[in-house]
């Protein structure tokens, strides 16, 4: 697979609500899904000066939870919490400003907000700040700084950041090319359950690139990602079955995974040719397995 270096999509990593705030009545109501009660309670707590309460109000309005979605109100609440120094609010406000939701779009201010929160150790903010430096959005393009912030986010255990940092080492973006480190971080992201990372790491294991060659482990990862619906993994698995690599040759299984990958847009002329060579019985069997997989992923 050609690994492309990070399409710039603003990535909202799940915002961890601060532990201390979880004790408050508003957060308890929020956790129970009683959003209107939570909003009432938060309004009172906010008046009493709780920055976390403002953040919660922002979450409720930006998510449209129990109320109509209202980015302007969300931005207003986040801004108050951000002024009081809440890093989750700084990050969330940064996202609204970056997208121009409820406020005027301004990449530079978004980057400032991310930077505040990133310095407080917010991993989602660190990740997005890294992307801003990488793409020269709201900041002058600076790959070294991108790598620096990406490392901080990755070290906090976020699979997406680990995967992207792996790509930095693979392509030498902001850091010297280092195949071992590329494999290490991609492997961590793979352990974290990110399908794209599993496919990439499996490819490294297959080639023995930056990590000791292990075709069996590679095949296992392709299978895991294929079952989750990753079309590249499905294509690679089909090739293994078609060519009898790791697995015994099995044209029906090869056809099943190829058809699924094909439907998801991964083309493979050799497997098309294999598919055309199947007997009618084999083809029917493969289609049956495809239907079963799509119906609920019941087989395997």
């Amino acid at each position, binding site marked *: 697979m*050609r690994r492309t270096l990070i399409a710039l999509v603003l990535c909202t990593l799940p915002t961890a609500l601060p532990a201390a705030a979880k004790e408050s009545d508003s957060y308890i109501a929020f956790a129970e899904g009683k959003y209107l009660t939570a909003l009432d309670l938060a309004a009172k707590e906010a008046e009493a000066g709780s920055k976390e309460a403002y953040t919660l109000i922002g979450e409720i309005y930006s998510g449209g939870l129990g109320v109509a979605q209202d980015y302007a109100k969300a931005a207003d609440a986040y801004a108050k919490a951000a002024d009081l120094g809440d890093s989750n609010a700084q990050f969330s406000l940064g996202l609204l400003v970056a997208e121009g939701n409820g406020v005027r779009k301004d990449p530079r201010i978004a980057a400032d907000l991310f930077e505040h929160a990133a310095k407080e150790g917010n991993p989602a903010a660190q990740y997005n700040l890294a992307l801003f430096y990488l793409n020269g959005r709201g900041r002058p393009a600076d790959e070294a700084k991108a790598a620096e912030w990406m490392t901080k986010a990755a070290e906090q255990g976020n699979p997406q950041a680990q995967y992207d940092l792996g790509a930095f080492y693979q392509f030498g973006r902001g850091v010297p090319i280092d195949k071992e480190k590329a494999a290490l971080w991609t492997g961590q992201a793979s352990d974290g359950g990110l399908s794209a990372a599993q496919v990439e790491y499996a490819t490294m294991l297959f080639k023995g690139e930056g990590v000791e060659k292990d075709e069996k482990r590679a095949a296992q990862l392709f299978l895991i990602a294929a079952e989750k619906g990753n079309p590249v993994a499905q294509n690679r698995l089909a090739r293994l079955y078609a060519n009898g690599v790791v697995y015994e040759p099995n044209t029906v299984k090869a056809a099943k995974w190829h*058809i699924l990958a*094909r439907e998801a*847009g*991964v*083309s*493979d*002329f*050799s497997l*098309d*040719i294999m*598919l*055309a*060579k199947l007997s*009618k019985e084999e*083809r*029917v069997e493969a*289609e*049956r397995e495809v239907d079963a997989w799509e119906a609920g992923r019941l087989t395997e």
Partner: protein
Amino acid sequence: MADAKPTCRLYLQIPAHLTAKLESQLTQALAHVAPACVLLHGNGQAVEKVPTDRLIDLVQGAGVACLIENDIDVAERLGADGVHIPADPDLCARARALLGESANIGAACGLDGHAAMQLAEAGADYVAFGLSDGTIDHANQCTELLAWWSEIFVVPCVAWNVESVAQAVQFAEAGADFIAPPPTVWQSDAAVALITDIDKAIRGARRLA
């Protein structure tokens, strides 16, 4: 037991001389359909004489296999996925020797079933039936050949230079595994629409048993 769904696929041919218009048409086409492969066509000229790197990158970058017409050495040098060659068993053997097991090697068999058998024997990955200047007679002959071939042989068959949706459906129903519109298809301003229509039609086509 349910009938197997047809697996007929689109096979694109494009002149290797890339113009801005062609490039834009191909990019659009690849956004709308996922062909099995794209064949770079020399239009009577050796593909070698044409700068094809960019075109190969465009096709392979879209995740689609890229084949070269006739020239085995060029295919090898440019890292193409295979070749489409005249029906000559010796040439087929040479292509296999040079390009390896994983390469896709196809043979243009015109309306010659005997040649197709020889090429299948020689290890071709597909055989293509059809002429460059097809008439209705030829179309009927081609339909018969495709039906006969797909009934008896395992090696996939391509319906060559298919110019219309109706013809594409006819060939798909007869048993063609791939439908290849001609390289001249791009001359029309409606090329992308036609290709998209053919793709849609052959996916929905039912093979007549």
